[in-house]
């Protein structure tokens, strides 16, 4: 789960990370109050996409008087597909220099990972490798001030900045641990008035750990239909094609998209119906696919834990209750295969056993429908 900048700043501020004065702004009138309170400020769109600045999502208001007009320009604007509903007014910093620092997990090393750069303010992927300092954290040791101080010296920082950087990395690692973060990022980490201050911040929390962070507000990211399917407990991603896809298992679902694309088709979604889903959730998932108005629905099942007869029952249930008004291609093999295939056959649906053949047929039907 990604947190909005203002929420990330709140968490970091509580942890002792220096952040500029700021407050949330939902209306032009609040923008005026905010600038009156904190002085000249940046009004920043609170959306979960990068590159807000370039896209016009950050503007400055020098006086309370001009703040409402500036706020109005951003509030309600469309930013890379997201509507801006909230701003964060933050005291304008007199930035001398921009750095970068983040804590994340290095999957390969199975360890926390700190990355810092002497060049900040741009995406870290765009920074020259020579400007980046990387360091794994030994979870047996954690992060103490010397750790970040050593990184600071490697970045060419010295004196006060090195000391502040050491304290900062310790605190960021604390947040990473305490909040089960996938990413804690400060970019840019500004030098202002000779001191470090977090000018922008990202905090992404491990979805699997949300149950132990009941205090955090829930931020739902996704299209309306994505949110709906996820509420069913299923993994779902909306794409821009016309063949709706359901498979069991994340790998199988990805492979199914791949197969469809391989034969020239365009997947409309990713849907993992789960490794061992039973009739009801499978039917619900299928219902969602129907509601998306695809040209074709392609169900690809390798029955391991999933039982093929359960899948067949789910398909028939959806056809009876709400109807399936588009062509349906079913590939069904594995546990209870025969029972499932027979159930479908009785209802006039023929199931494929080869994934390749089924995928090709789904693509063919979609082309026919165009």
């Amino acid at each position, binding site marked *: 789960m990604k947190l909005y900048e203002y929420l990330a700043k709140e968490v970091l501020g509580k942890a002792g990370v220096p952040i500029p004065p700021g407050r949330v702004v939902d209306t032009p009138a609040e923008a005026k109050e905010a600038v009156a309170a904190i002085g000249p400020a940046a009004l920043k769109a609170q959306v979960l996409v990068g590159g807000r600045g370039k896209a016009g999502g950050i503007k400055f208001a020098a006086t309370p008087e001009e703040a409402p007009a500036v706020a109005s320009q951003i509030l309600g604007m469309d930013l890379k597909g997201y509507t801006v509903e909230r701003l964060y007014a933050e005291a304008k910093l007199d930035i001398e220099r921009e750095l970068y620092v983040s804590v994340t*997990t290095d*999957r*390969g090393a*199975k*360890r*926390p990972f700190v990355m810092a750069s002497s060049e900040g303010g741009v*995406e*870290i*992927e765009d920074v020259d490798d020579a400007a980046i300092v990387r360091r794994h954290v030994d*979870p*047996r040791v954690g992060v103490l001030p010397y750790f970040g101080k050593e990184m600071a010296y490697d970045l060419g920082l010295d004196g006060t900045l090195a000391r502040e950087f050491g304290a900062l990395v310790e605190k960021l690692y604390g947040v990473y*641990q305490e909040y*089960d973060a*996938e990413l804690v990022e400060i970019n840019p980490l500004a030098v202002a008035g000779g001191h470090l201050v977090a000018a922008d911040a990202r905090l992404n929390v*491990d*979805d*699997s*750990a949300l*149950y*132990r962070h009941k205090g955090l507000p829930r931020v739902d990211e996704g299209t309306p239909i994505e949110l709906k399917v996820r509420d069913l407990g299923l*993994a779902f*991603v909306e*794409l821009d094609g016309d063949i709706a896809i359901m*498979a*069991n*298992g*994340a*790998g*199988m*679902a*990805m*492979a199914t*998209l*791949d*197969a*469809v*694309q*391989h034969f020239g088709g365009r*997947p409309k979604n*990713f849907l*993992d119906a789960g*490794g*061992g889903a039973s009739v009801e959730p499978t039917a619900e998932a299928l219902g969602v696919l129907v509601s998306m108005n695809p040209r074709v629905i392609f169900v690809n099942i*390798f*029955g*391991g*834990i*999933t039982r093929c007869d359960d899948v067949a029952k789910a398909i028939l249930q959806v056809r009876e209750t709400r109807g399936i008004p588009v062509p349906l291609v079913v590939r069904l*093999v*594995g*546990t209870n295969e025969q029972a499932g295939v027979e159930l479908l056959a009785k209802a006039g649906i023929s199931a494929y056993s*080869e*994934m*390749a053949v089924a995928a090709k047929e789904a693509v063919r039907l979609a082309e026919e429908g165009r």
Partner: protein
Amino acid sequence: MAIMLTRHHKILVQGMTGNQGQFHTRQMRAYGSNVVGGISPGKGGTEVEGVPVFNSVRDAVRETGADASIVFVPAAFAKDAAFEALENGIRLLVMIPEHVPVQDSIAIVTRAEDLGATVIGPNTFGIISPGEGTKMGIMPNHIYKPGPVGVVARSGTLSYEIAFALTNAGLGQTTVLGMGGDPVVGQTFISVLHHFKSDPDTRAVVMVGEIGGRAEEEASLYLKELGKPVVAYLAGRASPPGKRMGHAGAIIERGVGTLDSKEKALTAAGARVVTMPWEVADAVREALR
């Protein structure tokens, strides 16, 4: 022969009295796994599927000499179960639960490293050694047969698809191992390949990878040392960046984890990378010639 799991392992099932634990205890025993005990606090002294239930791993190890354990508890209790196993001498640990917090997984794998224990998972289908007639996992029993191919996969169902195709093509398996779909898991492709290298019966290896992370790229550096033919299928060719494709680990983030990068690295290291899952069996047959 096989890797990691042999018929000699004495296996515990943590969370055996739950639905999943009970079902898979039955399946494992049907396959031949030597399940010697189950753990379910407060139910010590009872039996499930003819297997004695203990209150704690400590009691079970004391009574049965178990050295392996498979965990079927809810994600929130996975860390406790894993540490209970590791601290009581279990040295092969299969973690089935999905949605285990990454910080917990880091703690588990770090501790296992210190103790010289092997962790498979979390969010894995487990490990099966057909030639040894034993498994610790949730994979269907009928799709495997003994033979010369080692399989290591990130994903469950997809690996079933491929293992079944191998079996149908007459290509049996030494061991099929699921690394798990999470960002942090006990095994890497390299650690598993390293085991396959030492197993004389494994004559070719199938890697089933997917987008996300750099595990495949890192593994490519090991292929030369492996010295055995590798066929790789990678899922996610059609997946867009920035979207999590089911697995917590399957996401292309900030330019890392693209299929292109993985395919290039593996091909350059001499692996045969096939485009579609149904091409794996033929590629393995060729590799074994």
